[in-house]
């Protein structure tokens, strides 16, 4: 069954900013679906439209077959949402935060006690439940935030930048919890991130979004493969008159797509796959022409390359044009209301 279906979603904020510009996709049940894009790309707005916090300008959304605009009450009961900001009240204890969240979802105290213990144990917070949240570390706060989103046993969990600003260990721990939710608790998970690594590590499928449009959507492996295989960078120890012959021999090897050379003697060889297995063969071949290999390097495409290929720039804030920067700022403010 489809967990989420989004058709031609458009959101234009006051002032004419197109935050989301005709996005369509589906998420399958028990899938971890990643939304990858720079700041201001439209990730948060898309999530907020799906869970009914922001009214779409156009387009339709279904969650488990229920129309979000028609039946927001039903939809809200089947979704859990942890926003980008860790929305924990730090003057309350962990348990009080969870308890209130349960009451806001109209659970009975008995249900909250049973379910609350379960999620707090799952997230390793049970022992600290009676401490004020202001004594928690950043990672604990995020875990509590996600635990709160799970109190009413949602079928699908929306995580907006779940590991933003966390250190590497904490981030890995959060990843483990997310995987556990899917593997052991059969949950569907929609997460947005601008960490390539996170999308790659967690997601079954990734959509790359920028300027409110989906630029690519596939399994992380397929996205990488589509960029065109491995790249071998080769440098020879000597310049020889037999070099041109060697290069054409390399070109003729099976699996080699392209070969380019720079004037200072660096050669780039694109191969379809298994670049690591081709390296010994290349060295052998060079030796048979009497040419020594000085250095060799293999680079496999990462999701970074895919991302850069589609968005054409690195982190927006770093080198954004002023216009884009302003747009991103306005968007973030709009989204936060």
């Amino acid at each position, binding site marked *: 069954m489809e967990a989420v279906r989004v058709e031609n979603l458009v959101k234009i904020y006051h002032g004419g900013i197109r935050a989301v510009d005709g996005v369509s996709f589906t998420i399958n049940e028990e899938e971890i679906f990643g939304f990858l894009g720079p700041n201001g790309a439209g990730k948060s707005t898309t999530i907020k439209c799906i869970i009914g916090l922001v009214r779409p300008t156009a387009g339709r959304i279904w969650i488990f077959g229920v129309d979000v605009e028609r039946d927001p009450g039903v939809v809200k009961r089947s979704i859990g949402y942890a926003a980008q900001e860790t929305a924990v009240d730090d*003057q309350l204890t962990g348990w009080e935060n969870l308890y209130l969240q349960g009451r806001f979802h109209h659970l009975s105290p008995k249900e909250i006690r049973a379910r609350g213990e379960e999620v707090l144990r799952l997230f390793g917070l049970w022992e600290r439940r009676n401490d004020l949240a202001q004594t928690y570390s950043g990672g604990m706060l995020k875990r509590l935030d996600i635990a709160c989103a799970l109190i009413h046993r949602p079928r699908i969990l929306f995580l907006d930048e779940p590991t933003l600003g966390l250190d590497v260990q904490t981030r890995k721990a959060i990843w483990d919890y997310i995987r556990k939710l899917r593997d052991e608790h059969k949950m569907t998970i929609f997460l947005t991130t601008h960490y390539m690594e996170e999308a790659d590590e967690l997601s079954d499928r990734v959509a790359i979004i920028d300027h409110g449009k989906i630029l690519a959507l596939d399994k992380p492996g397929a996205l990488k493969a589509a960029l065109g295989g491995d790249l071998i960078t080769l440098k020879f120890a000597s310049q020889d008159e037999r070099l041109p012959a060697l290069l054409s021999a390399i070109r003729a090897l099976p699996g080699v797509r392209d070969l380019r050379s720079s004037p200072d003697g660096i050669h780039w060889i694109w191969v379809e796959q298994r670049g690591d297995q081709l390296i010994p063969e290349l060295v052998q071949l060079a030796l048979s022409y009497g040419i020594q290999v000085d250095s060799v390097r293999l680079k496999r495409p990462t999701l970074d390359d895919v991302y850069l290929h589609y968005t054409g720039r690195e982190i927006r804030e770093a080198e954004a044009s002023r216009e884009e920067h302003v747009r991103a700022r306005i968007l973030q403010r709009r989204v936060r209301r």
Partner: protein
Amino acid sequence: MIIMDVVYVAWRELLKFFRARVRLLVTVIQPLIWLGLMGNMMQGLTQNPFIERLLGTTSYLAFMTPGIILMTVLFGGVFSGLSIVWDRRIGYLEKLLAAPISRAAIPLGKMVASAIQGGFQGLLILLIALGLGVRFSTGLAGVLFALLVAMTFSLILSGFSLTLASRIKSQETLMALVNFFTMPLMFTSNALFPREAMPAWLSAIAQINLVTHAVTPIRQVLLFGWDWSSMWVSLVVIGGLALLMAFLAGQSFLRATAE
């Protein structure tokens, strides 16, 4: 269901209110200072037949007690909106909106919390006044009635504050704005001085001031006794304003969150 939503929104605020020990202490000490210092200071000045006739009582302390209750409630209630600004900033508001809770319950719950805080503060001040020798003419029933009026007054102010807070998204602006209203409201009322002693223009303003309308019934009941004919207009005014503000706070919040 909306009632339970209101209850739990209010419960959260109250949990935090009673947990903030320092703030609680201040809410006790502040009226103690007002009553203990100003009340006694004015005592000498007010002990002459002319002023006693204006006050309607021989004890300025007793006269100002209702005023101090309402002043405390005024300064507390008017900051109720800050909690919504804060909730918005930390993302808690969004979490509430994503839950199947009734949206109107959010401002209403905060108003109810503010009223309960106001009632609690009013009770503390009455106890302090009692300790300083003020006696209430109508006993426990009068005390309960006075607290009820104070709570209704608190609903008006928190409703006003929340109405503004739905639109104003910065704490600093909101604080500046409500402070702009509170001082003039206080000093153009009969909270600390009898209207009879005011110049005519000020007395006219005081007559329509909502603080006056809240002070009058409390003072009537605590100092003189039950006299509905002198109280009913004020009771209708503050009751009506409380309902109006609840409506406005709800409307303003719903409009601000409908995107």
